[in-house]
């Protein structure tokens, strides 16, 4: 299966403009056969347009779409070996579940569909519901019908357009695992469009983060999370604390920067910005990498660690962890997530603290970009 490239999706220089508005800037993207690929971004970032161009529901302004070796750019949707799970499912209301699932087979002139449809309904655990109408099913069941209706055609690529957006949180978690299971079972290439970063990270092997019609960064979920290369990715995927700093010097693969009088160290390999002395960089660290120590115990902190002083502005206890907002000279709202293992009772709002973390957990970004890109998009979810 891994040698088979007939399910590769290759987009070359593909773009879409509506009048003067560019929905997708020229884009190159290759999705290998059998992978679970996610297009992640806020609404209006061009991810759905990209998906619809692969499906053939939208004609690209420029560029080509290849499925394996076949160019399909000019093919109408009903001639492409691709099927889509639509946002809010688009099940046919006038047909029962059986006929909804059989629709694709029948249109291709396949006569005896009964066995195949029943098998497919069993796969998504809906064998009992075959004769019901879509509106009689729950949201989760409808979602599974939509998946079955697409999968039964054994497409080379399955496109999923925000397939879980209409479900409540608990069901969404359940369906994420379910979809992942089905994908592993059938081995078809899945391209999944979502605005939910957690969903993208849980399900996909590779995530492409899109912003304003461009792919900002592409990689595995861990790679994107640990090594964001733009402030948008750093803020959109999880939370990042970004500090404006100035490069002081470089020694032995480490970059030393100055921020508000203090010094911070980060590995040169994790800095995506130019590191000329005196140049500006944004230094980032994820909230869960930081340890919080009360100012009275500051002497116990190992010297090699990056450190910042501040006062606790707010705390919120959420069971497994406590989230702190720290007011510090380098950043007015520094976020820290601490596991609730041994809770220090002195860490209450107003207390003076030292934040410290390993230099290896620090990344550097180009300071020429907006420091809060991607923050609001995530907050709006």
């Amino acid at each position: 299966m891994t040698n088979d490239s007939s399910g590769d999706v290759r987009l070359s220089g593909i773009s879409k403009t509506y009048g003067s508005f560019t929905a997708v800037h020229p884009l190159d993207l290759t999705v290998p056969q059998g992978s679970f690929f996610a297009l992640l971004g806020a609404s209006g970032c061009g991810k759905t347009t990209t998906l619809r161009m692969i499906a053939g529901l939208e004609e690209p302004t420029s560029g080509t779409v290849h499925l394996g070796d076949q160019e399909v750019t000019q093919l109408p949707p009903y001639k492409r070996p691709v099927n889509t799970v639509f946002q809010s499912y688009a099940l046919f209301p006038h047909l029962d579940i059986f006929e909804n699932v059989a629709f694709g087979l029948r249109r291709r002139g396949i006569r005896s569909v009964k066995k195949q449809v029943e098998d497919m309904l069993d796969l998504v655990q809906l064998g009992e519901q075959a004769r019901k109408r879509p509106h009689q099913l729950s949201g989760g069941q409808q979602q599974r019908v939509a998946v079955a209706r697409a999968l039964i055609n054994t497409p080379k690529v399955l496109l999923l357009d925000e397939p879980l957006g209409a479900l409540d949180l608990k069901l969404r978690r359940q369906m994420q695992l379910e979809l992942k299971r089905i994908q592993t079972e059938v081995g078809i290439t899945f391209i999944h469009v979502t605005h939910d970063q957690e969903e993208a990270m849980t399900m996909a092997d590779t995530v492409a983060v899109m912003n304003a019609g461009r792919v900002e960064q592409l990689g595995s979920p861990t790679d994107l999370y640990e090594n964001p290369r733009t402030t948008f990715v750093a803020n959109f995927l999880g939370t990042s604390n970004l500090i404006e700093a100035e490069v002081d010097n470089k020694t032995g693969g480490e970059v030393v920067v100055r921020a508000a009088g203090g010094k911070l160290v980060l590995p040169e390999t994790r800095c995506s910005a130019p590191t000329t002395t005196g140049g500006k960089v944004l230094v980032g660290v994820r909230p869960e990498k930081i340890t919080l120590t009360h100012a009275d115990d500051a002497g116990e902190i190992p010297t090699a660690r990056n450190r910042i002083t501040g006062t606790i502005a707010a705390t919120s206890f959420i069971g497994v962890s406590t989230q702190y907002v720290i007011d510090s000279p380098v950043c007015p709202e520094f976020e820290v997530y601490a596991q609730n293992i041994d809770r220090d009772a002195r860490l209450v709002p107003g207390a003076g603290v030292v934040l410290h973390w390993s230099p290896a957990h620090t990344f550097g970004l180009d300071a020429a970009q907006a420091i809060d890109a991607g923050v609001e998009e995530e907050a709006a979810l």
Partner: protein
Amino acid sequence: MDTRQSRIFGTSVNWLRRHFVVIAGLVTLGYLLLPNVVVTVFSFNNPKGRFNYQWQEFSTDAWKDPCGVADMCGSLSVSLQIAFWATLGATVLGTMIAFALVRYRFRARGAVNSLIFLPMAMPEVVMAASLLTLFLNLGAQLGFWTILIAHIMFCLSFVVTAVKARVMSMDPRLEQAAQDLYAGPFQTFIRVTLPIAAPGIAAGALLAFALSFDDFIITNFNAGSTVTFPMFVWGSAQRGTPVQINVIGTAMFLVAVLLVLASMVVSNRRNRHKA
């Protein structure tokens, strides 16, 4: 008022209050249906003289010989034919117009959208007179065809309105889903678009049939020597009203009631089957 009386008075006020909605509903229903009841009752009358306006005695003579009045069944047949063809013409054209108005962006779409409603708003007698002027100027022979053309014209707006409402509420993604599932444009239309739009089209068609069958003013102006059923009824009302008119009226009413009952039974059965 002593206490017993006031207690009775209080109970009946309470009873009225509790059943007010039902009573109001029944009264309104009666108001709607009373004319039909009168028509039905008088279809069993055996009037003295030419007018069927006073109850005399029960008789089934008219029911046994519905076509016993000269020319009446001929006019009924003309009306049914015109209604059939007008419904067909208006439904096909109106459905296409409705789809065009909802689905496509073209120049003057807004203007067309408003103009299509004009025939509904225009006084019928004005339209009738202007149509006659038009036909006479064109040198057209008044009769079946001029009536049909006029009927299709005024039924169109109603069909467009009914179908448009349905098409507008249709999710365009359903057709995209059909295309995604290997249905070409024609298959998509037959298998998805049309079935989903069907209730709107059926409503438009029924409306068109009723309007066409019923029309008097426009028909009367443009009929020439052709006589439709409403024209026959009007004409005979001057000289005397045969009981057969009531028989036809009652029969139409019964057919309509049967159709409604049948559709209720079908949808009930479907719902029970689904549950």
